[in-house]
């Protein structure tokens, strides 16, 4: 069932400055609940605002708020490009 929503693109592959639609968050992600609370919910548009160097975290813009997530978490967020 999960595979049906996974088009292969992860947040970690996203380009700087571009906006994406969150598709799903992989199961077993400890931060899933936290991400939901921060507004990173499937269907929501997130913009990759910054990437910290040296494999540092990502800064996203979600509903006008800046949210920082570590790369390990970015690896578990499936995204889709905006049409």
């Amino acid at each position, binding site marked *: 069932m999960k595979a049906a929503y996974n088009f292969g693109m992860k947040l970690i592959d996203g380009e700087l400055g571009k906006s994406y639609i969150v598709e799903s968050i992989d199961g077993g992600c400890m931060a*899933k609940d936290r991400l*939901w609370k*921060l*507004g990173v919910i499937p269907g929501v548009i997130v913009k990759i605002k910054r990437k910290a160097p040296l494999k540092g*975290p990502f800064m996203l813009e979600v509903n006008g*708020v800046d949210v920082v*997530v570590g790369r390990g978490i970015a690896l578990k967020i499936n995204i889709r490009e905006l049409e």
Partner: protein
Amino acid sequence: MKTVALVGQPNCGKSTLFNQLAGYKSLSANFPGATVEYTKGQTYLDDEIIEVIDLPGTYSLSWYDDAERETVKALFSEDIDVIVNILDASTLVRSIELTIELMSLEKPLVVALNMMDEALRKGIYINVNKLENVLGVKVVPIIAKKGKGIKDLLEAIKNAKKPLKRCVYSREVEKYINAVVNCIEKNNLKNEWPVKLMAIKAIEGFEACQKPLENSVCKKVLEQAKFALRDGLVIVQERHALCMDIFEAVAKVKKKEKKSFEEKLDTVLLHPFFGYIAMIAIFFSIFYIVFHGGVPIENFIIGIFDKIDHFIDISLSNYKLTHAIVKGVVDGVGAAFGIAFPYLLPFLFLISLLEDVGYLPRIGFLLDSTMHKMGLHGTSMIPFVSGYGCSVPAIMATRILKSRKEKIISAFLASLVPCSARTTVIMGLVGYFIGYGYAILLYVINIVVIMISGMILKKLLPGISPEMALDIPPYRLPTFKTLMLKTWHKVKDFVFLAVPMLIGGSVVLTLISYYHLDNTINSIFKPFMELLGLPSSIAVVLLFGVLKKELTLLMLYQALGLSSLSQIPQALTPGQMMVFTVFVIFYIPCLATIAAIKKEVGLKATIYITLGTLLLATLLSFLTQVIIHIA
């Protein structure tokens, strides 16, 4: 007595409100969840005393780290009469999600809508009456920073009622939730959670709610619900949509498209290259201000205590033992004031400023990848930086960290950072007699050792280091009053913790020399000193360094039987100086630091940390000796 709990998401201004309500007994922080311990205070409501509890900030009732768990536990367990939910009006959508969860606790609830001014600046106009009607909870608009609306809030607390409404999902979703609810009730699997919330959280996969159902008769029902509701995602989306609907119904947004000043500031401060330059510049200026500004004040304070010393010498010269003890006490107090006022006060003020302006989470963003390798977050930077001044506030700064594992690692590593007392040994011994290049080398080695130790500790210690997932608050201008309160609070902590230790240490020192116990101690530690290739006469110096590291250098030449510091090369070879300094940098933190560590992480971890540093220091100084011999 009525008990009122303040609950809100991180950065909603909760601690500021607490300060306004309950008279300056809590700290306010800009970093998410900074108030890790919860604070109590009292205030008057008409003529009745009410207790106010400031709980750590949490995004939701399903916790992510230790601090948030404490909040939720307190909400369940404490006898709380009224919950005050503080909302950040400028991030209303997200804030309401917590409100909806709190409503299901069915306790008297008041919503304090904070930061109305910031919302206005963002172009958000909120109709408070409408929000009140939609939520079915009393809503009081406040600006906590300026103390506006506090009177109305107190009035609302007095008349607080249980929420009129409950969050209702679509019929299909409710059907599955109810199936789980019924099963829980029928089989008496209820825990401290309200049953409906427990069912929802179990479907969403929240460990604490799911576990009681996992091996029970309800397992099947839960699995069905999970399957139908896509592991709770359907509930989350409905709730999110509900919050959006509420927001749209009560607020008008006039978009301001212009790139704000904050955005511009972030482009520099979070830049992949200039961000780091700016960070180094900021910390360098803090050190520069603190250490340059501190010296004259310290000299002034030392001057006063020298006079007192002199007076004691004259007036108590006939009573040797009393003289020794009194002198020990005065020296201890002098040392504490000599650190606290010239260095700590300005340092803590500037750190609080960075915290409240909102710079700390941004450092977290910049340094997260480096720190994560050590099992830490970017925010753990603060204990380290503070450590170069004094280890005690450095250890106290680990309070802003959330998981226990992180705290223990940070406390251990921060105690390895050479504090100003150890700096005098590095500079005064190695720098002065061997060369400043070697002194800098020691600092570099120190950083490398800290990093490696961190990586090892990350692997050794149980528990996971949760990855960073937090919101970056907007830049905010803190009020001078809040900053001073916060600084004062930290200095007070230092004084209460460190002064008794410093006094005790000084008294023990003077007593030992009074009873001439030095030789006994030296002979006990002789084998150990031989292992390191050091003269056994300085065992006593190292032992007393534990009591007070400021005295290490002074005691060193006295213990070696020299008349001044400049004669040290007569008694110690450069190699021995290196070995001695390496040992001093890494071995057991001073007594005051140990007390601070115990306060933050408990006795057991403190013993491990203390023994760990001793082991590390022995190993490294032994290695230094071997390397010097080979080279």
